[in-house]
């Protein structure tokens, strides 16, 4: 023992590292994590408390009531039109966006030469970074007149004369601001999210699976439909739900082009409204404590519930990929 101390140079007492810093850091991080939960809870509670007078007054029928009348003395509110408008515009956007997103992802993972993959991938990510108000302006000044002149006025009557589906195109609204325009703008806005998710999950398919399929003589299309899509199906649906979640809550771009009419759209070219548009339009003029403000809180709460459900489903579907 004494020999060893003499052979090694003498060392001082080992400095003990205090764990106070660690503890403070851990506590701060835990608090930050907990803060998110508290914040989320507080938002839900605030919305619900604000919404309570409307829910008490109209009951469950608020959800499917189609009257939205803020005129003083005859107030009556129902979320039906805006809920339908929100869901239909978002679903149409998905229908428009998914085939194109699939094309982009297919091209990037299977067809594109290596030097082209990166610029196109970056372009998609940039598209996702464009602020929504820009899409709204572009929609209002470019897309709406285009839809009005080149689709509705040029083809509207022929489309309306089609058997079975003609009613989808028959409308007395010629302003160009319509469910169709809103869905197109939304489709462009969510396209990058869906395309990027699809590309990422397609890339994760083990090369050996695809090579085996090619080895058996499968074509590219057969590899895509027989190997890649079955392997990634759940994640692709998760990516689509992610896009849907974004489409549901989109406000300004939709407000600019949907026409803001509290009427159920019976045709693609009719104007209607969405939950987010109604809130954006009417909140600044609603009096504190009025039934109108409460009804706006109530549809906000419903939008929260819908978005939460959609995002929860998408998380759940994407779960295996995120691990």
């Amino acid at each position, binding site marked *: 023992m004494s020999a060893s101390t003499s052979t090694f140079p003498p060392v001082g007492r080992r400095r003990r590292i205090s764990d106070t810093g660690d503890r403070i850091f851990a506590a701060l991080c835990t608090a930050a994590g907990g803060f998110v939960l508290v914040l989320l809870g507080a938002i839900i509670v605030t919305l619900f408390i604000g919404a309570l007078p409307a829910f008490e007054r109209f009951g469950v029928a608020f959800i499917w009531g189609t*009257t*939205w*009348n*803020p*005129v*003083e*003395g*005859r107030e009556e509110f129902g979320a039906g039109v805006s809920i339908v408008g929100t869901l239909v515009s978002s679903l149409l956007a998905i229908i428009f966006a998914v085939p194109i997103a699939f094309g982009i992802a297919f091209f990037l993972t299977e067809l594109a030469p290596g030097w082209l993959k990166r610029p196109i991938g970056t372009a998609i990510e940039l598209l996702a970074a464009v602020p929504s108000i820009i899409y709204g302006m572009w929609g*209002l*000044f470019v897309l*709406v*007149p285009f839809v*009005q002149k080149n689709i509705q006025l040029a083809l509207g009557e022929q489309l309306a004369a089609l058997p079975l589906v003609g009613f989808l195109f028959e409308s*007395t*609204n*010629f*302003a*160009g*601001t319509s469910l169709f325009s809103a869905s197109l703008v939304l489709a462009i806005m969510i396209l990058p999210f869906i395309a990027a998710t699809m590309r990422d999950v397609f890339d994760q398919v083990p090369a050996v699976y695809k090579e085996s399929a090619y080895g058996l003589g499968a074509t590219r299309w057969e590899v895509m439909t027989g190997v890649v899509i079955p392997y990634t199906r759940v994640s692709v649906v998760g990516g689509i739900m992610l896009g849907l979640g974004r489409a549901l809550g989109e406000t300004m771009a939709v*407000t*600019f082009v949907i*026409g*803001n*009419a*509290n009427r159920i759209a019976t045709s693609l070219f009719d*104007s209607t*409204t969405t939950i987010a*548009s109604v809130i*954006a*339009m*009417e909140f*600044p*003029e*609603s*009096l*504190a404590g009025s039934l109108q403000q409460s009804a706006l809180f109530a549809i906000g709460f419903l939008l929260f519930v819908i978005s939460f459900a959609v995002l929860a489903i998408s998380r759940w579907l994407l779960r295996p990929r995120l691990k």
Partner: protein
Amino acid sequence: MTHGIDRRALLMGAAALPAAGSALAQQATITGAGATFPRPLYDRWGAAARDAIGISLNYQSIGSGGGINQITARTVDFGASDAPLTSAQLAERSLLQFPTVMGSVVLSVNIPGVPDNALRLTPELIIEIFFGRVQFWNDPRLVELNRDLRLPRLPVSVAYRADGSGTTWVWTTYLSRISEEWRNGPGAGTSVRWPFGNGARGNEGVSNIIRNTPGAIGYIENAYAVVNRMITTQIRNKAGQFVRPVPETFLATAAAADWSAPNFAPDTIDLALPNVWPATSPTYILLPTNPVADRVAGSRNTMRFFDWAFRHGSQIASSLEYIPLPTTAHDLIRAAWARSVRDPAGNPIWTPSAA
């Protein structure tokens, strides 16, 4: 070298400090919030009054509803609303309401070949159009009224304000006045259930729909229509005359209004007098009648500000296409200030010498 400049600048800054300090002491700031319609005017009045009487105005155009909320919570010196409040609403919030200027709502159309202020519309046809019951512009009823115009076979599209607004309040009040069906149906308010058409945000949104859509018609604020050279229409007023949306018809409405009406809310919509534009209405200021001690100065300065604006601001108002009130109205408003607005000790805050 740079040091030298810095030092000189510092010295100059130090020399300027006392002067800046005294200037600040003279400047009083009042804060207001509310209607978007009079914002350009209040901004110009604020800039002019800062130089003239040392009161600068911080006005936030957050909308009439927001203005009422803020003044009810007493977070500002005054609120501003396009639609007048009822006596009950004013009493509940302890507010005095007075008008500053008037504005008009006009109809704007986009019909190729139809020049400005040429299209004539009757109240009956306006109602039919806003209910969506006139399908094409070459409807026989429209053609008969406008024999000198060539009206094309274009679908009629109605554009309206989707955001709550005083403009909508004025227009729907007019529609309710001229039609019982409208009064019992959509009614009058800052936003209503429109039976037909497309909604957009703000005067600019409605104007955009009108410009982009051949066959569109919509109501917009006159100042916005003039500045943006929108094509407007004639309307037949209650006296049976077709009137154009021009300053003479607006001023006729202002002169005809009964400013001794309670809460300064005279009925100015659809008057049965010759030469009056039927959709003209004042925009209002809401002032607490019982300001707390530390808001008394703000209350006094608010009244000084509008007193100055009434004396010297009419020119600015006219140049921005607002309609100034007659001087008789100004005197009645000053009398109301002296009568109604009291400090916590119960003394009137406004005295004619305070100006």
